[in-house]
């Protein structure tokens, strides 16, 4: 069964790669999305058939609730509100990766190898930054908060310090994974970092940031894949992480800007989505 599961995962990863390729061209885009959907479906089905799953109660409940919310929102959202909707969905993806990593930490009760503890920290950090950053992007485009850049003196320096603190705490956690407090503080720092790294960016530049956050959520999924030793997560996450960076770059070029300029220049005053 393990072999069959992994072969299906390989097929599903291949579908994602071909699907992503097709999505880049107008003629094949819709077909590409459908192929990628099929890849996701078979990955879910084969996971459910795997013998590792002992209890289906929470799974069925979660699938029904999630599918109902996702389908309702996707069907009712205004076409003009699409970018912020992508941001919101993306944030949930980041949250899911962080939740899976934390769940695994609770399950193994703090006993793990160094490769698991390193990727667990990265999964939590990137996942939470993705969630909070995406929520800020959503709030800016939806007009819940101002679309104008919010800056304060020493912002870049502060962000650098926050990232350093998070990584240092990660180092302490790797040295002693039994201390849960390290993880909780890392989550706290990641929340602040998610806010402070997205608020200085103007509403008009938000699609570029959403694309970058999309790349982050892929990386978070890949890190979660390392935590669970699950190859389909590693492949698909790396795929989205890398292609997301390329797409972010293409979007910057289309605006005649560099990524550094978008992230640090604090221009673009208007809320793009309205």
């Amino acid at each position, binding site marked *: 069964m393990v072999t069959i599961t992994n072969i299906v995962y390989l097929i599903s990863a291949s579908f994602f*790669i071909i699907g992503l*390729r097709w*999505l*880049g*061209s*107008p003629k094949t*885009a*819709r077909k590409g*999305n459908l192929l*990628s959907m099929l890849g*996701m479906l078979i990955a879910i089905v084969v*996971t459910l058939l795997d013998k*590792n*799953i*002992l*209890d289906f109660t929470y*799974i069925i*409940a*979660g699938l029904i609730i*999630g599918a109902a919310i*996702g*389908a309702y*929102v*996707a*069907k009712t*959202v205004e*076409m003009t509100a*699409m970018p912020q909707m*992508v941001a919101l*969905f993306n944030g*949930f993806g980041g949250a*899911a990766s962080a939740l*899976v990593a*934390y*769940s695994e930490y*609770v*399950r193994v009760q703090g006993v793990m*190898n160094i490769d698991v503890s390193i990727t667990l920290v990265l999964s939590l950090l990137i996942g939470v930054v993705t969630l909070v950053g995406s929520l800020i992007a959503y709030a800016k485009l939806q007009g819940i908060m101002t679309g104008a850049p919010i800056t304060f003196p020493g912002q870049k320096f502060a962000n650098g310090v926050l990232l350093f603190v998070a990584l240092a705490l990660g180092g302490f956690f790797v040295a002693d994974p039994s201390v849960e407090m390290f993880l909780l503080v890392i989550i706290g720092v990641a929340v602040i970092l998610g806010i402070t790294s997205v608020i200085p960016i103007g509403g008009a530049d938000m*699609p570029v940031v959403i*694309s970058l956050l999309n790349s982050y959520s*892929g990386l*978070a*999924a890949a890190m*979660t894949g*390392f*935590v669970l*030793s*699950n190859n*389909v997560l*590693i*492949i*698909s*996450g790396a*795929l*989205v*992480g890398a292609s*997301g960076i*390329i797409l972010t770059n*293409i979007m910057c070029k*289309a605006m005649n800007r560099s990524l550094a300029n978008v992230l640090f220049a604090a221009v673009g005053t208007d809320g793009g989505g309205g």
Partner: protein
Amino acid sequence: MDGILISLYIFVLAIFVGFEVITKVPPLLHTPLMSGSNAISGITIVGALISAGAGHNQVAKILGLLAVITATINVVGGYLVTDRMLEMFKKDKTGQKR
């Protein structure tokens, strides 16, 4: 240690695939492509299913349940929204022909 090394190989090779898979994309497709690849990152649902369904630790399972909910929103919402956007482009084209 062998397992982690193989995973690392897979990870690095998949990153190279990701760098190559997207080339010239018309601006019209930027948002759908972003949305479609966002749905793919919802693959973390596989991890969520494993967390929610395995073991006997109640806290781990509840975290797993929350992960299943959020990942499913990402997957279902992401694919449907992408499909809606792409469908709109098709309609736009036939509209122009008229």
